[in-house]
């Protein structure tokens, strides 16, 4: 109807302003891809809503802030008194992630500098592809490696009774996180414009001086972003830590202690709980905790990296 009016009002030669089928298809497609665009936001909110929905009962009922965060006793199935303290689980996750980062940060930054600044041609291409392939190894395979290969090696080398412990999981997690951190860090180094390097080299600085004094400071934020994403990855890893930590509740005093991680606890226990029980809801509450922490880490990494692009 509005089409006809426009046509008569403007007279002959103006029929190009009709809203054609192509025009409507274009609007339709725009609406459809917009749905795709907002889906990511919908899913993130959905994750939070649905996990909260299942964990809500616990938060209103049995949840005791002091016990939950400060008690090392995770005894959700105790017949005398159930306790839901995640302190030991947090300690397990923190010790394994901490050790992993101790290994992964220096080595992945070193590898990133080597690949970005020293290696060239075929060597560089080969290293980049290798790092990419290493990053693709599934976590359950890493867990199996911890179980079947690292475990006997640790028992033999250090003469300890159990090889599934902080050391094992930390090394596994470190090897797992390193490739991803390497490629993000390498991207950050590559983002430093070449004129920076050339200017410093023209002043007679050696390659290492250039890297140390010019490239690293310029890439600082990107490198920090890489580290943060590595921490996030280690923190959220599930299968590898489930299989390689020994899965026993412990606040570790040495790297040879077995521990249990937050993620692994959910993976190991969710299948055995009745839907809606306090234990089941407590596991979802741990999920909320994990979601919030990783959200903060990712947000921080994003803000830090975006700072680079502005400056």
């Amino acid at each position, binding site marked *: 109807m509005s089409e006809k009016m426009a046509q008569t009002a403007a007279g002959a030669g103006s029929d190009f302003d009709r809203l054609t089928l192509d025009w409507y298809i*274009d609007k339709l497609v725009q609406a459809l891809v*917009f749905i795709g665009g907002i889906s990511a936001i919908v899913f993130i909110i959905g994750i939070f809503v649905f996990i909260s929905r299942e964990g809500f009962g616990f938060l209103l009922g049995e949840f005791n802030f002091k016990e939950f965060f400060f008690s090392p006793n995770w005894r959700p199935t105790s017949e005398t008194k159930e306790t839901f303290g995640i302190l030991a689980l947090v300690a397990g996750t923190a010790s394994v992630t901490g050790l992993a980062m101790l290994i992964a940060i220096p080595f992945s930054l070193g590898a990133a500098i080597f690949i970005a600044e020293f290696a060239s041609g075929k060597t560089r291409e080969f290293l980049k592809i290798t790092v990419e392939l290493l990053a693709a190894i599934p976590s359950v395979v890493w867990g*199996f490696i911890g179980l079947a290969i690292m475990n006997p090696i640790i028992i033999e080398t250090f003469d300890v009774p159990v090889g599934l412990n902080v050391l094992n999981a930390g090394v596994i997690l470190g090897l797992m996180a390193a490739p991803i951190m390497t490629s993000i860090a390498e991207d950050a180094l590559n983002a430093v414009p070449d004129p920076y390097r050339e200017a410093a080299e023209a002043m007679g600085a050696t390659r290492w001086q250039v890297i140390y004094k010019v490239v690293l400071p310029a890439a600082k934020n990107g490198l920090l972003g890489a580290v943060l994403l590595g921490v996030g990855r280690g923190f959220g890893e*599930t299968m590898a830590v489930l299989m390689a930590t020994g899965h026993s509740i412990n606040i570790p005093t040495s790297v040879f202690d077995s521990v249990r991680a937050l993620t692994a606890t959910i993976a190991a226990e969710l299948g055995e709980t009745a839907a809606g029980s306090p234990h089941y809801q407590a596991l979802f509450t741990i999920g909320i905790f994990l979601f919030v922490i990783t959200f903060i880490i990712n947000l921080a990494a994003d803000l830090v990296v975006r700072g680079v692009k502005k400056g």
Partner: protein
Amino acid sequence: MFETTSINKKNITQQKLVRIGLGTMTGILILPVALILGTLIYKGAPMISFEFLFTGPTKGMTAGGIFPALLGTVLLVLVALLASVPLGVAAAIYLSEYAPDNWFTRSINLAIINLAGVPSIVHALFGVGAFVIFFGFGTSILAASLTLAIMTLPVVIVATRESLQAVPMSFREACWNMGATRWQTIRRVVLPNAVTGILTGVILEVSRTAGETAPIMFTGAAFFLPLLPQGVLDQTMALSLHLFVVSTQVPNMPEQLPFGVALVLISMVLLMNSLSIALRMYLRGKKKW
């Protein structure tokens, strides 16, 4: 005048040391993994046979093959792709071709980063809460695949967006000047030149989906099933979970069998990734403008 001074010498030595040091660090990251993969192949290869790949487990999973798990992984991946590829490509088209530069677009990007960063076990909890319970799919291939699809959505979005943005803006403007609508421009000029790049992203997603374990544990994958699934509302076995089961949950497991399972899984994943890398390199060598 160009004599090598002592400072220069010191610098050159320092340079060499740094190079060797960093090279060694790179090697230390890569070599152990190479050794580990070697061990996997050495111990796993004897297990691999036609029978291992194409028959089911027997004797309480301590013997026989992995066929139901292999088939289950293929099914899970296929259903997940059906959901995530159209959605991911649409999202990428929106972000690359339509989205204005404002706070809303930035929050979409942040959501994508978070979707990729949320721990896999949290995705599993979401799958249980949303698909298994709320939407009533039960523990099924459908619930597990949708969980995987949402988890790996960022892989498709990021790869697609990158290949769309690699198409120069001048091509779009030339089309618009001829009176092509945005969609006609995308369909006739932008997408055809981005399709190989999108394919590399999809292959990466296949690899990622096939390797995931935690998200399917409680949403649709089972430790052991005597029968193959008959539809998307049935449960299924899956290769990744099968590796977990045979290496931790089954007593009297012969040492070599889990190595065989691990070798098949990792071969599948690395093969997919290599394919994606090869495709990318082919694309780089084939300039169209």
